[in-house]
């Protein structure tokens, strides 16, 4: 396995210490626990998946919709697509769904893996690998995708 790249293009650098949304707008501080929350069932309510966006935590789907080892895509109101993943240890990850090498919105359909402890998704088109923790491409130091903070939260049914 290749080692982690050392350089990130300006403007794409994830916030130190954790995943952060990309773009000009700064992430709104929130109570999220970020990448790494277990997605187990909690008593007395439905477990939902939430993404931290510019305007705060937004619920995107039920936790039950995720399959360990695979991803799903969500469409945000502004047209952005985010790929959500659940790994076999129960950790949640979210990165942009667009494969920057081909332009196709397919990263959610890639296979998960881990290399040197870093979880990644391999693009189903040309197989480049992207770290799920911060979106950097493991096969090309010049490329990365946005990463999002994600959590599972108990939400009372509407």
């Amino acid at each position, binding site marked *: 396995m290749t080692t982690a790249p050392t350089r990130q293009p300006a403007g794409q650098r994830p916030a130190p210490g954790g995943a952060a949304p990309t773009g000009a707008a700064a992430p709104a501080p929130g109570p999220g626990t970020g990448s790494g929350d277990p997605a187990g069932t909690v008593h007395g309510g439905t477990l939902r998946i939430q993404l931290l966006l510019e305007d705060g935590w937004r619920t995107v789907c039920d936790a039950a919709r995720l*399959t360990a080892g695979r991803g799903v895509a969500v*469409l945000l109101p*502004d*047209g952005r697509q985010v790929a959500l993943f659940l*790994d076999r240890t129960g950790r949640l990850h979210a990165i942009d769904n667009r494969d920057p090498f081909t*332009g196709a919105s397919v990263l959610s359909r*890639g296979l998960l*893996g881990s290399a040197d402890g870093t979880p990644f998704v391999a693009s189903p088109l040309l197989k480049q690998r992207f770290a799920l923790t911060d979106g950097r491409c493991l096969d090309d130091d010049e490329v990365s995708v946005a990463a999002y903070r994600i959590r599972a939260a108990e939400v009372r049914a509407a």
Partner: protein
Amino acid sequence: MPMETDTHPAPGARPGGPPAPGGDTGTPHGADRSGRPTLVLVGHGMVGQRFLEALAELGLTGTHRVVVLAEEPRPAYDRVRLTSYFSGSTPQDLSLTDPAFLAGHGIELALGDPAERVDRAARTVTARSGRVVGYDTLVLATGSYPFVPPVPGRDATGCFVYRTVEDLLAIEEYAKGRASGAVVGGGLLGLEAAGALQGLGLATHIVEFAPRLMPVQVDEAGGAALLRTIEGMGLTVHTGTGTQEITVGADGRVTGMRLSDGSELATDLVVFSAGVRPRDALARECGLAVGERGGIAVDARCRTSDPAVFAIGECAQAVDGRVYGLVAPGYEMAQAAAAAIAAAAGTGPGGRTATAPAEFTGADTSTKLKLLGVDVASFGDAHGTAEGSLDVVYADSRSGVYRKLVIAADGSLLGGVLVGDAEAYGTLRPMTGSVPPVPAERLVLPAGAGGPAVLGPTALPDTAVICSCHNVTKGAIRAAVTEQGCGTVPDVKKCTRAGTGCGSCVQVLGRLVAAELEAGGIEVDKGLCGCFAQTRQELYETVRALRITGFRELLDRHGREGARGGEGCEVCKPAVASIIASLAPALGASGYVLDGEQAALQDTNDHFLANLQRNGSYSVVPRIPGGEITPEKLIVIGEVARDFGLYTKITGGQRIDLFGARVEQLPAIWARLVDAGFESGHAYGKALRTVKSCVGRTWCRYGVQDSVRMAIDLELRYRGLRSPHKLKSAVSGCQRECAEARSKDFGVIATADGWNLYVGGNGGATPRHADLLAQDLSDADLVRLIDRFLMFYIRTADRLERTAAWLERIEGGLDHVRDVVVHDSLGICAELEALMADHVSHYRDEWAQTLADPERLARFVSFVNAPGVPDPTVGFVPERDQIKPDLPLLSLGTRPPAPAPAGNGPTALLEGTSAR
């Protein structure tokens, strides 16, 4: 070639006279225009070529003009492997000479123009063409000639010797239409020649004067073991028998032989292989000293009685008084002569690879050969001539194995003879002269009978010579790995030349390199990926034997240390998924690829049961077995394509591909197709794709079998079979081969009597014609063989290794595969057939299975939070009355303005439509 510097003497010019002015005999001997001295090599055999390489290594090709006069019409070739011509090697395969080597070093090679005369006073060589070349240094490497005993009739038509490619071609030509042949001489070359004659289909006799075969190398008991084995192969051996006369017919052709025991032997041709004699005539004629029994006398530096003239190889009598007829001593002499010339020229052996001995004082005549398929080896004091030496012997006449070690009084190994199984030669020979690390009796016993302690190369001292052809020690090989960074056997061969001679040491070399890499902490990693240290084949066996049905179970129990408990990766997940799918019925696992954990292992194509295309849309291929389809079904495909706005194209596998489907459209498309009787074509899987067919006997006036029916039967039998890579097949109804079956993984071609089965074909980037596995098979036999072949491939191939690559990689190649699947040499055919029967009976259409399961259908959405919304980045534009992906839409990189809040209905503007 700068011929202008040579002198072609006018008729009447005095041989050996003063040099003509202006010729290259001018300044003062043979120096060329740039003033470089000239070195002339006479003879371009194996030793001559080795000498040229040594010159180049020592930098002498730069300081000298090098001219080579060769008798044969082709550059140096591997005479030791001459017989391999009859097993398919071409003369080009045998070549030892890289034209780039000669050109790169400015070596002038004159083929078919042997030296005829040497004038030592004038220092010139005259070639047959009349060309005169002056020399400063002359090296004779004229080799030897076959000894033909002086019996009457020996010049008759049909008498041959066995020495050159030309001899071999002549024998082959003459043997056509003839029935029998005899070889005079039962030594090393005689047995080679006998093997060649038998290979040409002749009833073959061997006539040997000595009381046993290979009298020089093996002792009496070893000869007896060899005799039994060779007679068992159908050759007739006459030992202790001399040849008195070759009988000749009225037409001047050989009719037979009269032997010393008074008997007569009818034979159509005779090959003399009764030993060789040094070719020293050129040296004799110019007054150089020669040995009593022939051979140009040389000193330890291979210098003749004239210090400007050297002699190397079989034409020379070494300083120990022996003439060596083996290539390895010849190579050492070549090195010694080159080193002596370098020393004289002042370029010295320093700096370059100076491992070669500067002197040649005698050599080991150890040999290991495979004669007529029998291993024969002898080394050191094979006959136990040393005083006080004793033998340790193991003999098994039933299996034709004979092993003898000669042990000195102090326990050291002096030599030995191995017949029938010479596997141990590589480790025993280097131990000669030392006390073996285990008792000698254990070294001769077969495995399983108390021995042999399989002596790894680690048991050898660094001084042990591993490659005796090039005199490479274990220490040099280790240094190549540890100091010169060679990481593979080919690297080490390139760097040290070890293993590039006879090749008998390559196995030991491989173990040595692996051991050295391991000792250096460098893992020789053949593992599947970063998660598994096993190969695909090993994982297959693990899964099968332990009935493992889950990826996590396999990873956590059998993965690499650091990978256990991890996620796996994009390499091992689909590979393991495929193994489990192939074995599913036998394991009691679900064969459905979207079941449970299996779903998370599949590549996106398998996950969505469709082929992902460049813009994120999918294509759909229904199965059309054998390429046969009714008009009604064709119309259904057309209607589905029209209604979903899909692009349609006929594939190379005789079916129809429907492009441009979005994830959420897939179930609806399948539903229409399944309703009409279609099923998945597995175009997305590493699985059987199509069995193509020509129209066959039913319609075609040339057809001899019903190829369409057979193609349909095969496609329906193997549909859904998951394998290491995709599988393609075809059936042709006659030898015209319109279905192109020989470019397929398994191809079937009709014959008047049944079917021929070809395997391992490939189109694509590295095309390969499939090899014939079996002929004239009945329908049932054909299917049985394909069952076995496919299951054996699935069991033993690497990940993503097509049958063509597999067949070329697997040890023993096609012959091995034929042994296993046709002759059941491993005794696994019943199991392979049972696995296939399981597959056939458990097959279910994946599309129909998915449609029947609402939970799985829920996965077929573009967005989990907006199930009805199509992916806005998947768009199409028109081209040639159909659609194509809207690539500019993808290259925007930013998303179009939000079309609508999530949850609204599909946006119509991006829907692909075709004009109607």
